[in-house]
């Protein structure tokens, strides 16, 4: 009796009771479908987040600040003036020079953010300016633009604008691969689709607010006339040279800034001296220097060393790469919870297998007695039932994977068509890596074998004399 014999015996038996086999199989199919779609959702989320990080080069990026940003400390400072002020290193150009010398560091530049109003034609929109040196053009996401090119000079009058920012300015940059259809609301708002060629080279006004010092000094007492506002506007005009790709749904648009302006050009834009309310209220005086520095290392592997060096200098370092482990752990817990829910479905299915197998053994008692009488050993009889159980597990797993995959496609479609806003990049919520596919098959077969354990040994222990006694 070889394995092929066992398979043909098992298959014949399963086929003989096909309705019952089908129902049992259905239980396994549903269990595996639930398990795999759940876990694939977890892995899909993780992949989305990690891909977004990698696409934005976050794993090789670090942010350097002079002190830890902690709210408690700030409250404290507000009450008792600077009693616990630490000796902090100013983030100035000489520090940048020092950091640049550290091995593994590729680029260092101060992070400069400020709010401006953009204007193209009649349309205006507020956004964050992101000041970036031209040298960043070789890295993600600046090396892979939606259209156009990155500026090549730190004092260039060219800017790169985000696709979404253009949309807020009622311009949809045409994407030949994914045609955008205007909604009714879009048309009412006057949104229009333009080919990229007609957007690149356009002029854009960047309007910044400047404190009108004399007016503040006068305390607004003589607040008459348009020119007597505490803030006045400064208008600079640039040329759009590139468009940044649409961000994925997993990244935070606001964090990045809607417009990228060359470093020196941006620094030359007159603006109020605070970058946020935070700084405005902070009692800590900065004797020159920047709020934070952006450090980019050559390779992910360099992060560890550079971080240590920076900490030795006495500055605080934050890197997402550092958080990666933590993020992975969170996802692992999420996967485990999702997997556990799916496993419950599979366990219920395995009870179905046990039930079916015991029924089948009761019906086939005489047949098992016959097999023993003509020389079947206990182990062979046990194996025949194992083969039946694992066949249910294997076939159930394959169809369960197909069902799970279909369910995930439907869910994906529903999410992308009705939940995500129109024009957003489509997201793939479910991800079926090879380990999940193979793991599901192995798991299903193992669970089925475990379910077949008791029925099979019960079959093997059948007393042939009793089974064959004529009635």
């Amino acid at each position, binding site marked *: 009796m070889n394995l092929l*014999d066992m398979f043909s015996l098992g298959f014949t038996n399963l086929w003989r009771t096909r309705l019952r086999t089908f129902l049992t199989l259905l239980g396994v199919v549903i269990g595996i479908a639930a398990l795999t779609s759940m876990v694939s959702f977890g892995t899909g989320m993780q992949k989305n987040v990690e891909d977004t990080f990698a696409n934005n080069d976050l794993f090789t990026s670090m942010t350097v600040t002079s002190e830890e940003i902690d709210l408690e400390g700030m409250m404290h400072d507000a009450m008792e003036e600077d009693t616990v002020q630490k000796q902090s290193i100013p983030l100035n150009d000489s520090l940048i020079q020092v950091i640049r010398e550290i091995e593994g560091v590729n680029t260092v530049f101060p992070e400069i953010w400020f709010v401006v109003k953009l204007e193209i034609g009649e349309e205006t929109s507020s956004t964050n300016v992101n000041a970036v040196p031209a040298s960043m053009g070789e890295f993600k996401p600046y090396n892979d633009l939606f259209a156009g090119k990155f500026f090549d000079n730190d004092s260039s009058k060219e800017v790169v604008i985000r696709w979404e920012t253009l949309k807020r300015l009622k311009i949809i940059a045409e994407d030949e691969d994914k045609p955008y259809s205007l909604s009714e609301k879009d048309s009412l708002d006057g949104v229009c689709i333009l080919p990229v060629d007609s957007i690149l080279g356009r002029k854009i006004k960047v309007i910044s607010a400047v404190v009108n010092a004399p007016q503040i000094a006068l305390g607004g007492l003589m607040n008459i006339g348009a020119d007597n506002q505490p803030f006045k506007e400064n208008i600079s005009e640039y040329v759009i040279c590139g468009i940044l790709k649409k961000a994925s749904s997993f990244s935070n648009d606001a964090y990045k800034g809607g417009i990228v302006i060359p470093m020196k050009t941006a620094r030359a834009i007159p603006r109020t001296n605070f970058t946020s309310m935070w700084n405005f209220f902070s009692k800590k005086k900065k004797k020159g220097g920047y709020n934070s520095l952006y450090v980019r290392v050559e390779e992910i592997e360099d992060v560890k060393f550079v971080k240590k060096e920076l900490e030795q200098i006495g500055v605080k370092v934050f890197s997402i790469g550092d958080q990666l482990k933590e993020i992975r752990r969170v996802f692992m817990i999420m996967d485990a919870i999702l997997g556990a829910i799916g496993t419950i479905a599979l366990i219920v299915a395995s009870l179905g297998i046990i039930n079916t197998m015991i029924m089948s053994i009761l019906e086939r008692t005489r047949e098992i007695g016959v*097999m*023993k*009488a*003509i*020389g079947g*050993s*206990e182990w062979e009889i046990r194996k025949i039932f194992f083969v039946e159980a694992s066949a249910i597990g294997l076939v159930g797993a394959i169809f369960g994977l197909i069902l799970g995959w279909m369910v995930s496609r439907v869910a994906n479609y529903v999410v992308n068509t009705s939940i995500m806003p129109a024009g957003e990049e489509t997201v793939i919520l479910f991800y079926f890596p090879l380990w999940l596919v193979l793991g599901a098959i192995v798991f299903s077969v193992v669970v089925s074998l475990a379910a077949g354990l008791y029925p099979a040994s019960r079959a093997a222990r059948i007393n042939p004399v009793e089974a*064959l006694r004529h009635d």
Partner: protein
Amino acid sequence: MNDTYDKHILEVSNLCKIYHKGKIEIPAVKDISYKFHNGQIISIVGKSGSGKSTLLNLIGGLDVATSGQILINGKDLIKMSRYELALHRRFLVGMVFQSFNLIHSRNALQNVTLALAFGGVPRKDRKEKAAELLKSVGLEQRLYHKPAELSGGEAQRVAIARALANNPKVLLADELTGNLDSSTSKEIIDLLMNLNKEKNLTILMVTHDIETAERVSDNVIRLKDGMVISD
């Protein structure tokens, strides 16, 4: 090899089988000793409940004796592991029953090939061998019939073909004509006698029909209350 084993294919000594029903002991076979000669036909007769089937099942290795000895080919069945007993049933003995005990979902050919499969006959040779066996019991026209489509006599022939599949030394037949009419019974008994002659097969058969037993057998064992009574 050894002449005594050749002469006495099977030797039973002081064989006892006690069943337990709760605390009550039911002795089904009591201290039976017997030497079976190679190539003989031996009939076992006795009243219902005298222990005939029990004795046959013990020799066939379907049941395990309480005490005593069953020597076959020089090996003691009582000392065998469960796996060795399976091999004993597979290769040394063939069993036929009153109620045929064919597998209903398999046709005549498939019932025989199953035994061949357990005997380790390669897949490709089984069909031919099974057809040959069925032909030797006169069933070449019924290869693809399911048990339900066979007469009692035909079904018993399939059972005999199956019992002979792995060339056993001893055929154990428990009232194999019990469900058959007298003319069919005679045909089956004739078949057994032929097999006994052609293959020098040792046959041990339980029967109620003392007349036939005395006609065809080399020896008749009479059982009463689990013991052999000498005449």
